[in-house]
């Protein structure tokens, strides 16, 4: 199989309301990614775009609309989507573009401008539910997270305070991220527990913020990557998996689809003992319990045991298994597709030793980024190594 590397990355700040249009955000990220590896758009053979539901940007066929900003003028261009999993899927899409042998250098862009849904992007989530059997109940996004979180807590006897440690860690980590929307170096578990109850067991500070932003990375095939940079970061494994849409017909306590995606990626990367072989993790953390849920699905924690890891500090930046050193979605922000690709950019910078104030000590060699989406249904996983 052709080896594929990440050779460049760029991102905009994640902000609550951007002046920039979606096209302009995409362009800024794309241009930065190209500049970071001293390429121009002429060097790019194809473009892959990730953006989640069109409702947010408020444009039908949003991929087409964003294509010029993404650098796709007169190039092969495709948009992929798997809901919230899109941000970590779109580099997989880039990977298969290159690994197939059809292209040598591919630009991968992820964009979300959630502020275009007015007054509040949350309302867009009504329409992710089944139009006939669920939507008439007027569900919202908080429902599914709250239902899943409660099931997770009940099944394993987990407390809200344990889970709140994740929000504290990530928002503190994000204080070192120059693009972050909600970094807070002084946040405490009490702050999280005392914040407004939105949908018990979910409080306001358990949740990542609605945001606008874009991220881009450049992928290249081995022989090209080694010419472009002396620090290529290899995509060693990819995995994705989609569970049934009948989400009320399965146990929400454990994300088996994340496990299936992770197993695919581990196998491709030749990883037998993920807990020893993965040095940094960026699991998807739109809500704090999700980080824990996903660490278990990724087989990096036993079922129900991830909360203890965060409480014990194992997942701190200087812990044994740094988790979301970027600050994650909880801290940096959650422009859906862009947030996932931010995690790829973070692993890229961490493995190259370029993460500045956020640098994980000990020269990590291998990292994993993961996203999740749809009706608690899809897992996307990328393993990168240097």
């Amino acid at each position, binding site marked *: 199989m052709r080896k594929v590397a990440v050779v460049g990355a760029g991102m905009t700040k994640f902000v609550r309301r951007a*002046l*920039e249009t979606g096209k302009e955000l995409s362009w800024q990220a794309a241009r930065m990614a190209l500049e970071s590896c001293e390429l121009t758009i002429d060097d790019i053979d194809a473009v892959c775009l990730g953006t989640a539901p069109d409702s947010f940007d408020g444009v039908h066929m949003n991929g087409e609309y964003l294509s010029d900003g993404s650098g796709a003028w007169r190039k092969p261009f495709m948009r992929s989507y798997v809901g919230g999993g899109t941000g970590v899927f779109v580099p997989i899409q880039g990977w298969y573009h290159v690994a197939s042998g059809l292209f040598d250098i591919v630009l991968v862009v992820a964009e979300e401008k959630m502020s275009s849904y007015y007054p509040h992007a949350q309302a867009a989530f009504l329409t992710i539910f089944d139009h006939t059997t669920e939507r*008439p109940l007027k569900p919202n996004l908080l429902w599914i997270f709250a239902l899943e979180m409660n*099931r997770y807590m009940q099944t394993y006897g987990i407390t809200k305070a344990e889970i709140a440690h994740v929000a504290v860690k990530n928002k503190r980590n994000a204080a070192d991220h120059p693009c972050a929307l909600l970094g807070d170096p002084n946040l405490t578990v009490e702050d999280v527990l005392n914040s407004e109850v939105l949908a018990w067991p979910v409080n306001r500070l358990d949740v990542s913020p609605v945001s606008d932003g874009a991220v881009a990375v450049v992928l290249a095939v081995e022989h090209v990557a080694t010419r472009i940079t002396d620090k290529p970061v290899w995509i060693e494994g990819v995995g994705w998996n989609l569970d049934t849409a*009948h989400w*009320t*017909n399965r*146990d929400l306590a454990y994300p088996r689809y994340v496990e299936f995606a992770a197993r695919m990626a581990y196998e491709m990367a030749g990883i037998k003992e993920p807990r020893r072989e993965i040095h940094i993790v960026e699991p998807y953390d739109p809500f704090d319990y999700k980080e824990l849920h996903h660490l278990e699905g990724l087989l990096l924690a036993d079922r129900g045991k991830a909360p203890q890891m965060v409480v014990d500090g194992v997942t701190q930046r200087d812990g044994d298994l740094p988790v979301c050193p970027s600050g994650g979605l909880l801290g940096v922000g959650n422009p859906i597709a862009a947030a996932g690709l931010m995690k790829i950019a973070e692993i890229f910078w961490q493995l190259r030793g*370029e*993460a500045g104030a956020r640098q994980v000590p000990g020269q990590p060699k291998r990292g994993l980024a993961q996203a999740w989406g749809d009706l608690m249904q899809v897992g996307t996983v990328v393993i990168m190594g240097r």
Partner: protein
Amino acid sequence: MSDQIAVYPGTSLSEDDILEGKVLSIHDKLDGRYAWDTGIAIGQYLAGLKEGLILGAYCATCRKTVVPPRIVCEWCFRPMTRYVPLKDTGTVNTFSLCYVTWDVKRIKKPEIPAVIEIDGASPLHGILHKVGEIDPSEVHVGMRVKAVWKPPAEREGAITDIICFTKLNTEV
């Protein structure tokens, strides 16, 4: 971030910047209206609800009863064998006390969305609905519940023909 990059683009606006016209904006709204064909299985499900009945479907290959009914079993990809009338009682699999409506309005009295495992369906097979007519603090995972139906004349063949699920009286 990379320590190689000095400046990150992205211009943050406040709500006031837009409301006060410091920054231009355009409003629009989609007129997106649909009439989704219900088809065989969901059509029958809705017809059942109108009669005060929750219908499931049985897969003889997987020996599983699912709800709502569907024509194909997603696990073995064999056609579902038959409809199965289920009970209108069940067990709370998980729930939330939600103080925010779908369009992000705050409410004092919480809505109680829940996954209800329906009696007669296979374990862990349930539907999304709401728990009601109960003090929210009483709701718990494992609680036995029963459907509260609209009067027959008011039913239209919709999931909302069930007003909510409420505590089953037999529970001590």
